[in-house]
């Protein structure tokens, strides 16, 4: 089967973000960028399916300016076969992303689409589900286990209070949670090889998608800072403070 996986270029998760002083957005100038961790897990899962002989081809798609090709190349170095970048000025809203991906999927006709459950920049957790609605495909979100079996995929999902397993008809969409797998590192020879793998560029007009603004970002502010309190010297002092000062015991 053909598997399609999506990746997003985001701020590296180890970097502490700062809000711009004019409160228009966070400051991404000269900040280290990386593959969104949940997308990395999606790539790993797709590559494992190929290694197991279940997937015949793995295609990666990313949306954004040319810089996103760095993340596509990372996916190619991890074992993906070819890449597609959809050219946009910046990172479009989830619904627009879903509409662009839907068109690529109509062309590529993968049987399984694996995506990260959310990007760690906007924290929306929407695109996979929206794509499912647009294509009328079933979804297995927040996946911790994926098993392909006879025209169906069984997805174990991390839900409030435990795990739920659903069976989905193929083609289907899976969004990854943290414990689905542990992504590998790309080896140097594979990084070199990835440079020669095919990478196509399309634009929204080719795909017949009009990008529409559904929301407007009015401002971005830093969260309320919590002040550090005091250090206590003993458990007795702690219990006393909790009882008599904080009054929470």
């Amino acid at each position, binding site marked *: 089967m053909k598997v399609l996986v999506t990746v997003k270029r985001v701020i590296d998760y180890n970097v502490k973000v700062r809000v711009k002083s004019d409160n228009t957005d966070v400051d991404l100038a000269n900040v280290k960028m990386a593959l969104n961790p949940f997308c990395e897990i999606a790539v790993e899962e797709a590559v494992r399916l190929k290694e197991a002989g279940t997937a015949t081809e793995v295609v990666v798609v990313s949306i954004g300016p040319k810089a996103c090709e760095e993340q596509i190349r990372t996916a190619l170095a991890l074992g993906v076969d070819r890449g597609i970048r959809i050219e946009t000025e910046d990172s479009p809203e989830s*619904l627009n992303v879903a509409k662009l991906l839907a068109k690529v999927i109509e062309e590529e006709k993968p049987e399984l689409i694996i995506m990260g459950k959310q990007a760690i920049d*906007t*924290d929306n*957790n929407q695109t996979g589900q*929206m794509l499912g609605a647009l294509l009328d495909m079933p979804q297995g979100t927040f996946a911790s286990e994926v098993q392909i079996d006879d025209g169906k995929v069984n997805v174990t*999902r991390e839900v409030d209070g435990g795990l739920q397993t659903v069976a989905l008809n193929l083609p289907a969409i899976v969004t990854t949670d943290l414990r689905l797998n542990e992504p590998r590192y790309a080896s140097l020879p594979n990084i070199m090889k990835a440079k020669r793998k095919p990478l196509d560029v399309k634009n929204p007009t080719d795909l017949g998608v009009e990008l529409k603004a559904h929301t407007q970002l*009015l401002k971005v502010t830093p*969260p309320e800072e919590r002040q550090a309190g*005091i250090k206590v010297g003993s458990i007795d002092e702690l219990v006393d403070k*909790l009882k008599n000062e904080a009054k929470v015991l």
Partner: protein
Amino acid sequence: MAILVIAEHDNSTLKGATLNAVTAATRMGDDLHLLVAGADCGAVAEAAAKVACVSKVLVADNAAYEYQLAENISRLIAELGKNYSHVVSPATTNGKNFMPRVAALLDVAQLSDITAVDAADTFQRPIYAGNAIATVQSLDAIKVITVRGTAFDAAAAEGGSAAVEVVGSVHDAEISSFVGEEMAVSDRPELTAAKVVISGGRGMGNGENFELLERIADKLGAAVGASRAAVDAGFVPNDMQVGQTGKIVAPELYIAVGISGAIQHLAGMKDSKIIVAINKDEEAPIFSVADYGLVADLFDAVPELESKL
């Protein structure tokens, strides 16, 4: 136009997260309807009708909705949602699963995990793991919204007397089915609803040592949580994880034991009223958010704390 709130339930009880979403919805408009979609969920509908500020309860009772399968329930909500100004759900794993599908079916954006309502079309939501707060205005006619429960007080569960109306529409997409579930069984309160939470991190050393925390939890009626490091190390199951990618909690008292305080963990608990940190590393970032910090070996401090409660 009225506001449609989607009830979170398990076909027998109405979940508390619904009440926080109701409070958020009251700040968007006056006329609130609650949708209970499930199977044999009559008891939930009865409870929903008593919730304060709700004028009508819609009940869609059909096997197709029993497990809240997104493929089925999103079609129902989108069909009903066309007649509302706002469609609101708690940001539980159910709401997160089906609401973006509803938004796409209605061709509108979703505003995820809102923490404040500035106006009927303007909301605040955390981005970058809570390291920044975005104020976002919706330009759509229908606003599809998920609500972070810890950011809003719960509405009164009693006192309302809403009319109950049966919704006959059955949407069975027949592309997905429920196979099974493994739910954690515990006598302790749910993490997101507990008044006191005690969490352990990598410093706990292993899963058995979490028993030290469980003993305190039983004395205080607390829930037990964990940091991602403790979950990744295999000490405890993932449904105990507090953090950006786990549960977001905001109890009266949060006790962090052997947790260094990575950004990802702080994002999940920094709105707690009182934070206590016990860690032997006095430089641990957790102390920068703790109201009371104790620099000590947890294997001495925790048993002592238990004995003095």
